[in-house]
């Protein structure tokens, strides 16, 4: 195979990591909704923690994306 096609294949493989980020985001939102459903008064307190969790989990997905972009643009 040529070098360029291997780079594109690598970009595709790199995005497999987004599987974990997707699962993690699902878990965060399920816990978030569950917490608010059980105790609606806690919504304001949970929001900041939820956003921090969202940001930290999303970073995994974005690192995959950056690696894929670097491989494509190589």
């Amino acid at each position, binding site marked *: 195979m040529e070098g360029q096609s291997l780079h594109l294949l690598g970009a595709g493989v790199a995005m497999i990591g987004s599987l974990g980020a997707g699962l993690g985001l699902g878990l965060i939102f399920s816990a978030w909704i569950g917490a608010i459903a059980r105790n609606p008064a806690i919504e*304001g*307190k949970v929001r*900041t923690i939820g*956003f*921090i969790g*969202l*940001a930290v989990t*999303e*970073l995994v997905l*974005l*690192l995959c*994306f*950056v690696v894929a*972009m670097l491989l*494509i*643009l190589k």
Partner: protein
Amino acid sequence: MASLLEEFEIQSLSKPLFSLAGHPVTFTNSSLFMFLAIASATALMVLAMRPAAVIPGRWQMLAETFHNMIANMLESTAGEQARPFFPFIFSIFIFIFFCNLFGMLPFSLAVTSHIVVNLAIALLLFVVIIVTGFAKHGLHFLHLFVPPGVPMIMVPIFAVLELFSFLVRPFSLSIRLFANMLAGHILLGVFAGMCVSLVAAGWFAGLSILPLGLNVAITGFEFFVAFLQAYIYTVLASVYLRDALEMH
């Protein structure tokens, strides 16, 4: 692929103004949109509060909503002591938010889709955090790198780990914002390209309404992301600020 990245290109709009370390410094479209963002944010905040009324009008309501949202967030994450830092945190939020919004205009450049802009803001933030930490706690600030209740023998390992996680923060903060903006704009470009190629394919032309409709929805979502990423940036900034103010 290269055509999708065309919108992120930085172009010089002027003759080289002066040269810095051998590199010519010019007024680029990035600087233009930064100036636009600052000018419109300042205009919004100043003009909306011009007759600072007791019963707010529509514009004043908008300005007060932004102010209260960030003020409440800062107080709940970084505590009462963080009040002096409110103007700094609020400026970061409003600058990133307006840069993201200006990026949504057609033929414009999303300034925050360049990692160097975000990294510069993040490094400024970390200089402020480190200076505040040392000014407030003295050398005791170094206890940040040793969590309480760690056995003596584990201290070197923990110190290295915590130092690494502290040093990686500005990068994670800037990569998050830049990759989000880049991914969103590329997504818009991909679906727009799908529209064009469906029309060009002849009798599939009617199907191009599907990616078009999706593109409309994604545009709305991108406005939400523009707000959300600016908010997350400021939430994390104030969480890191709490480390300097309250230690553990």
